[in-house]
C-alpha cells in the first residue's frame, strides 16, 4: 500500500484566473431551486480579516443529488447546477457564492461542504455549513455549545451569512481530515 503524498500550503500566488468566475454554482440563475447568496468573512486570530484566502464548496443540488458516479440518482442531477465552487477573499476578508439551498439527502440535513486554503495553512481546513441546528450525523459530532457556529444566518430574502473564524474566540469548528 502507498502512503498519501504530503499536502502543501496554497501560498500567496494562486492565479486569480483560477478563482475568477467560479463562485456562481447556478449557471447564471438557470439552476432549479431556491437561489441564495452565501457571503461571509474569513478572519484569523484577533478578528483580523484574511485577504487572498481560497474557499471551495461542494454541495448537492436542490433535490439533494450529487453529480457524481457514487450517487445513484446522478442521472437526475440538475444539469444547470455546478456542485463545486471557488472564491477568493477580498481585502476585507469577504467571499460570496451564488448557489441554491441544497436538498436534504438520506440521513442528512441540507448542508454545504467547505474547505479553506490560505497562507499559513500547510493543510486544508474542512468544515460544513448547515441551515438549521438540527440532528445530523456530522453536526452531532460537534460539541453542542459550538453547533450554532456551523449554521448559516439568514440576513435577508435569499441571503445567508457564514463567517469563518480560523483561530480565536468563537473559533469555527473544523473536522479531522
Amino acid at each position, binding site marked *: 500500500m502507498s502512503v498519501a503524498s*504530503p499536502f502543501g500550503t496554497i501560498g500567496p500566488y494562486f492565479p486569480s484566473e483560477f478563482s475568477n468566475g467560479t463562485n456562481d454554482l447556478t449557471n447564471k440563475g438557470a439552476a432549479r431551486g431556491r437561489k441564495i447568496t452565501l457571503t461571509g468573512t474569513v478572519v484569523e486570530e484577533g478578528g483580523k480579516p484574511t485577504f487572498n484566502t481560497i474557499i471551495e464548496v461542494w454541495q448537492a443540488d436542490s433535490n439533494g443529488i450529487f453529480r457524481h458516479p457514487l450517487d445513484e440518482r446522478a442521472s437526475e442531477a440538475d444539469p444547470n447546477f455546478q456542485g463545486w465552487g471557488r472564491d477568493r477573499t477580498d481585502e476585507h476578508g469577504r467571499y460570496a457564492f451564488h448557489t441554491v439551498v441544497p436538498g436534504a439527502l438520506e440521513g442528512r440535513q441540507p448542508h454545504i461542504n467547505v474547505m479553506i486554503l490560505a497562507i499559513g495553512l500547510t*493543510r486544508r481546513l474542512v468544515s460544513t455549513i448547515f441551515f438549521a441546528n438540527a440532528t445530523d450525523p456530522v453536526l452531532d459530532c460537534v460539541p453542542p455549545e459550538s453547533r450554532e457556529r456551523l449554521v448559516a444566518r439568514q440576513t435577508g430574502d435569499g441571503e445567508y451569512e457564514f463567517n469563518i473564524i480560523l483561530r480565536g474566540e468563537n473559533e469555527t469548528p473544523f473536522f479531522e481530515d
Partner: protein
Amino acid sequence: MLDYVPYDDKTQMDRQIQRYPKSFTRVPSRPLIKRPLTLSERTGPANLQERFQAQTADLSRTSARAVGQLISVSGRITDEDGRPMSGCVLELWQANSAGKYIHEIDRHKAPLDPNFSGQARLVTNKEGEYLFNTIKPGAYPVLESGWWWRPPHIHFSIFGMSWMDRYITQVFFPGEPLNETDLLLNAIRDPEARDRAIFKYTGAEMGDESLMKYQLDFVLRGKNKTPELP
C-alpha cells in the same frame, strides 16, 4: 466503498512552523473533530475537465519560447492502493525563471516574461499519467520575512474522485541549496516523506527541443475498495 483514512501527520508538514508567523494566527487552536463520512463527503467535483477545458499543456511557450531552462515534468496519480486515477484535473502554477509570479501581490523586483504565464490546467490519461513542458522556476525571496528564500518549486492542485482526496501541494527540485533552509519543505520531518515532495531527475534529452526531465508520482487518499464481482 472507498475508505478515506485521515492523513498520517508523520508523513505531512507540521501544521505550525517556527518563523512562519501566519501558521500561529491561522491554524485552529481547538482539536479537529472526528466525523463519519456520508455520500456528501465521498462524492466531489470529479467532472471538471469540460468546464475547465483542461488539456495537455505546454507552459514553455505562448507565441515564442519563454526564457529559462526547458524541462518536462511527468508522473502518475494513484490512490493508496496503487490504482491509477484517470481523468483527474490538475491546476499548475509557478514562478518564471527569474522567480516572479504574475500576481498582484508579488512585490519581488524581478522581470515578468511576456511569453510565460506560469499556469495551466491539464487532465490525467487512462493510466493516471500527466505530462507537461515548462521552464524551471526561479527561486525568490519572501520579502516580509527578511531572510527566507523559497527554493524553486511548482504548485499542484489536484481534483481526485471525491471531496476527501482534493489535494494541494508544492513540489521541489532535487539538489537545490535552498531546499536545506526552506521552512515548508523541512516541515515534513520524515526524510522519506520529504523525498515524496521532491521531483526525481530522470535524464536529459537532445533533439529538436532539448530538455531536462523531472518526474513525480502522487498518491491521493482512498483505499480498500470492495472488489467488484465479475
